[in-house]
């Protein structure tokens, strides 16, 4: 009933228009590599000054939803994640596009973005306060074990060689050490460079590793293609996108994929609820989860629809999870929700438990707006599909310079520093070299994101327990995650040994 009132509140032309416009702008920013929901919100925040509180908040919310989904467009079409949340979408989306199934890949991504968003919206509406209480149970002990478990995704993300995957991850961890040590406030490994005092910023690192390296590779392969006339799909092949109707997904496939979507939605939701970890981790975790439990894990990475479902469901479910803690506890979980919080504060509204009591009408209007923004995203992206696909027909010599220009803008916008542009270029080169030598890039990013959190929470735990590890083992949640970690590691080693024996046997037979 309250939700109905919420819908009545937002069903006024000005708000509906803002929701549509916000979603569309969000999708645009999400789709452009380098720019993300956060950048878009930072730019649009001052615009909300002049709006009514509800209008302003609905607008920011729509940008958040659109921005989180829009990343899939460039991930699939260019192999460059539009936002950190769509890294895993590239793994299968880009190969599908290269096989001429761009529309099907995009359609699937869009549909499951909607599914993920809706799952999290439903949980948000009905269970938000209960779930928020659960999130409060997480002390450094539990965080430490959850992050340790998240690190095991490296195994699934190392296509081909697990050794190369681990090396890549360790490289990421090493880069993460640079900057201020969070638990002493002194700097490490800055080598006298003042600009490094804050370490490497995640955004330029991601843009460099995924976007710049991909562009460099395209440039390089173009040269080779001219020479040998065969490597890589030619422009003509790409143009021959197969003709499919609607989203390119049958109802049967849709229901079949729900097996993947529901657990991935849950993963996205849980990661969203835990402050500090966000969509950039959840899409990779969900991808690893689906690959592990799949009967045909070898198909992942070759243009397999399950991979897109995993990534896109999880990252959009994360939005709802992050909103739960923001609205019920007033705690921002990632930089985009921090911007939302700034938006609330500008209008003199403090999200938190009291908002449910003092201004329940506002809360339900926000819920309704969140549901509507998801729907708007589905509709806009559906009608946008033919337009997005046209992007493939723009010659790379026009498109890629534009993309790289946005990479510069995005790297700068992340923290408004020119230095970050150099960081982006550095990591572009590192990514390019690693790709050349067959090192997977995702583990580097996983290591870079998770290592500082792992260190921080472990050291906090030890500070509290005065050096003992036993109290960590006394927390039931921590024990569950430790066991999960252990099982994953053992299974991975077993699988690797089996593969090793098989390949040895094959070699012997040959």
């Amino acid at each position, binding site marked *: 009933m309250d939700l109905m009132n919420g819908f009545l509140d937002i069903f006024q032309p000005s708000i509906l228009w803002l929701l549509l416009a916000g979603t569309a702008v969000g999708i*645009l920013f999400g789709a452009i590599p380098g720019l993300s929901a956060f950048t878009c919100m*930072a730019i649009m925040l*001052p615009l909300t000054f002049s709006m009514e509180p509800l209008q302003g908040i609905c607008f920011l919310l729509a940008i958040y939803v659109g921005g989180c989904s829009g990343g899939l467009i460039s991930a699939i079409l260019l192999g460059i994640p539009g936002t950190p949340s769509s890294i895993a979408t590239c793994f299968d989306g880009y190969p599908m596009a290269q096989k001429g199934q761009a529309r099907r890949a995009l359609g699937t991504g869009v549909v499951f973005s909607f599914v993920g968003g809706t799952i999290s919206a439903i949980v948000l509406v009905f269970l938000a306060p209960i779930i928020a209480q659960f999130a409060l149970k997480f002390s450094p002990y539990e965080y430490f074990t959850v992050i340790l478990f998240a690190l095991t995704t490296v195994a699934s993300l190392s296509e081909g060689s697990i050794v190369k995957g681990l090396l890549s991850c360790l490289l990421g961890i090493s880069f993460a050490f640079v900057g201020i040590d969070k638990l002493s406030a002194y700097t490490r490994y800055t080598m006298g460079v*003042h600009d490094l005092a804050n370490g490497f910023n995640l955004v330029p690192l991601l843009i460099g590793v995924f976007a710049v390296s991909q562009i460099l590779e395209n440039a390089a392969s173009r040269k080779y293609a001219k020479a040998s006339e065969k490597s890589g799909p030619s422009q003509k092949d790409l143009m021959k996108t197969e003709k499919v109707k609607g989203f390119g997904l049958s109802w049967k496939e849709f229901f079949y994929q729900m097996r993947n979507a529901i657990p991935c939605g849950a993963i996205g939701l849980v990661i969203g609820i835990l402050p500090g970890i966000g969509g950039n981790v959840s899409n990779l975790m969900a991808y690893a989860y689906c690959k592990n439990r799949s009967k045909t894990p070898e198909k992942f990475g070759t243009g397999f629809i399950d991979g897109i479902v995993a990534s896109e469901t999880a990252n959009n479910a994360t939005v709802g999870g992050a909103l739960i803690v923001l609205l019920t506890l007033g*705690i921002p979980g990632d930089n985009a929700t921090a911007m939302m919080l700034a938006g609330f504060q500008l209008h003199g509204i403090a999200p938190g438990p009291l908002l449910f009591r003092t201004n329940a009408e506002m809360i339900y209007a926000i819920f309704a707006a969140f549901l509507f923004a998801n729907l708007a995203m589905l509709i806009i992206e559906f009608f946008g599909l033919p337009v997005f696909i046209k992007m493939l027909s723009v010659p790379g010599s026009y*498109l890629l310079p534009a993309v790289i220009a946005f990479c510069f803008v995005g790297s700068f916008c992340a923290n408004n*520093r020119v230095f970050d542009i150099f960081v982006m270029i550095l990591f572009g080169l590192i990514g390019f070299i690693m790709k050349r030598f067959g090192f997977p890039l995702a583990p580097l990013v996983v290591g870079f994101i998770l290592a500082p959190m792992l260190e921080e929470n472990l050291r*906090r735990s030890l500070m509290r327990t005065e050096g003992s590890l036993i109290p960590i083992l006394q927390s039931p949640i921590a024990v569950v995650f430790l066991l999960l970690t252990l099982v994953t590691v053992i299974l991975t080693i077993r699988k690797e040994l089996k593969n090793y024996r098989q390949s040895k046997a094959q070699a012997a037979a040959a």
Partner: protein
Amino acid sequence: MKKRTRVLSLLTAALMTCSLAACSGGSSSSEAASSQPASEAASQGGSEASSGEAKSVDFPTKPIQIICPVAPGGDTDRNTRVIAQIMSKYLGVNVVVTNVDGGATVMGMQQVLDSDPDGYTMIINGCDMFVPYMMGTTDINIDSFKTVGVPIIDNTTVLAVHKNSGFTDLKDLVEKTKANPNTIEYGGKIGATNQICGVAMNKEWDAAFKFMDVGNNAAKMTALLGEQTDSINISYSLAKDYFTTGEFQALCLLGEGKNELLPDVPVPEDYGLKNVDFSKFFWLGVHPDTPDEIVDILADALQKTTEDPEFIANMEENYLTTVCYLKDDAKALCNDYYTRTMEPYKEEFLAQQ
């Protein structure tokens, strides 16, 4: 086919130009949003110019940015945005907030020092600016800038505990820390003023809190809500909801004296303990080579901001005190804070690192 491609690439180009414009417009904020205040200000500026005071410099003629050296979502960011909004009314141009996070506010301060000394880049900061200086990780401090003014004092830092903690009042908590030294936690962020506050409480009250790193303001609230830590210091307005519901209890105000806007929160003196002052100021500065005429114009606009009823009301809502210290007065105030509330605890603070 060829024609179509050309049209499309043109379209893409157009699209990108648009969003580029949007982006630059963004880092220099919303043309549209502040067009109203801008035009208002223009008319005000006009009347001002005719009222005498012949200004030799033509300032400002383009948007001014305030660098906020912390991430959005906290009280510094919020206050900066309100200051920017009201100041743009009196300066006649947009005043834009740019967040440059990191290095315990050093990154943002460095960016201002690297910018042109033309007054178009301001910095906002609080007591936190002295911490990296105190630790010796940077040479930058208030003397590295020209001070514009201090418009706000935040005397709302309270020592908070959870309602289930069983601590009845400040006296009770302090006694309990004495009875069981180093078991009762005071959660904060390492290398920030709240750690110095912990040192001060232990020293001035003979207490024995165990300092525990829990993180920034949001993390401190989470930890206290989840009853993971025993006590935190926090700005009253940030946790207003929890004080209202009674989930958090404000045991005492960590300020020089009582805050009339918070009549129910006692001060340590009420229990016969020495007041520990961790109120905060918000200070605005510019590059040290900025011409004095320009600093005057900025200070003048800041003064008008602090007299603006909308500004005062907004601050009062969050229990903040609007003040107006300009230029050297403001600098003296900040330095006084440093010598009074931070320097005495320097050794113990550094020893804890």
